[in-house]
């Protein structure tokens, strides 16, 4: 099973600076936290993640076919 993963801004470096990657899940269902692990992305680098346009927590389950976007941590405003 695969998901489409889009990484914003500085997070792109975790996918060889690609905007959008097709990710094969190691096992399904898997959680967003596990997906972060798969890409070695520390949770501290993330503001929020959307799954099919909805903001989801790290324990959200993925079954394949989802579109995931990860937004980086920002500060100051």
């Amino acid at each position, binding site marked *: 099973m695969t998901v489409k993963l889009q990484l914003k801004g500085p997070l792109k470096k975790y996918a060889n600076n690609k905007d959008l990657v097709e990710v094969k899940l190691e096992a399904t269902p898997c959680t967003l936290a596990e997906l972060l692990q798969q890409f070695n992305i520390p949770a501290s680098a993330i503001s929020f993640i959307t799954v099919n346009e909805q903001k989801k927590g790290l324990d959200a389950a993925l079954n394949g076919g989802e579109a995931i976007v990860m937004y980086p941590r920002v500060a*100051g405003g």
Partner: protein
Amino acid sequence: MAYTGKVLRVNLSTGKAETEALNDKWAKEYLGGKGLSIKYLYEELEPGIDPLSEKNKLVLMTGPITGTIVPNSGKLAVAAKSPATGTILDCSIGGHFAPQLKYAGYDAVIIEGKSNIPVYLFIDDDRVELRSAADMWGKGAHETEHMISDRLGEVVTMAIGQAGENLLPMSCISTELYRQAGRGGIGAVMGSKNLKAVSVRGSKGLKAPDIRKLSAALNKIKKEDTLTEDNMWAYSDGTPMIVDLSQQTGILPTRNFQEGTFDEFEKVNSEAVKAVTKAKKACFACPLACGKYVETGTTRVEGPEYETIALCSSNCGISDLEAVLEFNRLCDDYCLDTISAGNTIAFAMEMTEKGIHDFGIRFGDVEKFLQMPELMSNKEGVGADLSQGVSYLADKYGGKEFAMQVKKLEIPGYEARGSWSMGLAYGTADRGACHLRAWPAAVEAFGDIDPFTIEGKAELVIDMQNDNSVKFSAIFCDFWALSTERMAEILSLILEREVTAEELTTIGDRVYCLARLFNEREGFTRKDDGLPERIHKDELTTGATKGKLLPKDEYDKMLSEYYKIRGWDEDGKVTADKKAALNL
């Protein structure tokens, strides 16, 4: 090292410049920057003065870490009574001015009175001169800086453009062309004093007992805590990164805050800006370099920042990046605050489209949009009205319910209906609607705290306001997300005594309450802490915030809780107990 112990006091009426000792007791209680400049103004300004009269004072204040190798320590506080709001006003400006002032031997400059001819102030170590600015008056801040550099060589300059000369309540001060003390009409304070610019050059170093050990400790902190994952957005993208986050969470102000998403955001987001970015530029001692120098066929500018994009692009319905860049450059040169300018133009656009008053400009009208900085700064044609800001326009022509301001300061780039704590942050910000006193959107709309409840929000906003008050007093840059504990660790090294996080939180509270007391003395109370009606009554219609508003009764409850936790009474006045607890 932490303080030079000297304040330069310049009286423009008499032409006299004198040095005096820094008030040590105040420095201990307020650190520097924001806090200390507010303290000086609170003690020295008569209540009720006209901010544009010679009785107002302009304070340039460094902090204990300024000029050292502490990362992100390059900022300067610029403070006065605000011409826009009548409240206390402190701005934070980057670039390289603050360290030069410290190297010239001063912690602060206090500028008083009014010159009868246009002048600029030149500080060259112990030599302090007022020089004629006759040939610069009427010129933009950019040419002014270049002219001064032609004459004086390597100096750092802060200057005003035509907007400041013409006393606009949205005029700012620029340094190194593209960095600003932006809000509340701080540029008009200089303009009212006939002060075109301040230039500085310093050659005195800051000594520390064991400076190699200190540097090594700070380099370790820089590597472990500054150049880290949660700060690298500033280097890789800068503030335009926030466009995508705001769009996704439905808090990107669009068409005068009628919506929280902008269909064409991808034309003006970080990816779009990156495509024309030529170089990254940092303030003094900053490893993060949030400044992005952009060049296109038609314009060049350092920017645009997120706030400029939010207020001048989506909020004006302008999706042409080239136009936004050029507008940004013009504002920086004329010295217009892009937040207030964009917000005001968007209001005029809605008024025109609704047929309430014809300002001759509509959403998305690029040609008229690009004429506005000049018209407003020179108070010509329709610009004469627009130059006075959104509150003035609403008083004169109507539309008060969608005049997006608090205390007459235009609201910046986060929609309060999609981030309720931002509403409280705007309502209780000391200088009117400001996102820098607290930026809870980061943990609420962009984090995992529910944006659509008031629960826990008062405490959240207070904690952030106190923390930022310390940050802006030390002065650390806002973009380094460092903890209070880390600030305490660094200040312990710099002040050579043990500073605790608790002590800093108390200082932050004290600074914030003193700012409140300044405003209280000027007649501000609970009635001034309200938000525009649109936020309470008009539901947003798109994206993640579709159907959302911030109900008035919920806001009032949140505000009451805020006062209670702050130790202020139901009318928002600092209680006697609170004053006693903070030595106020």
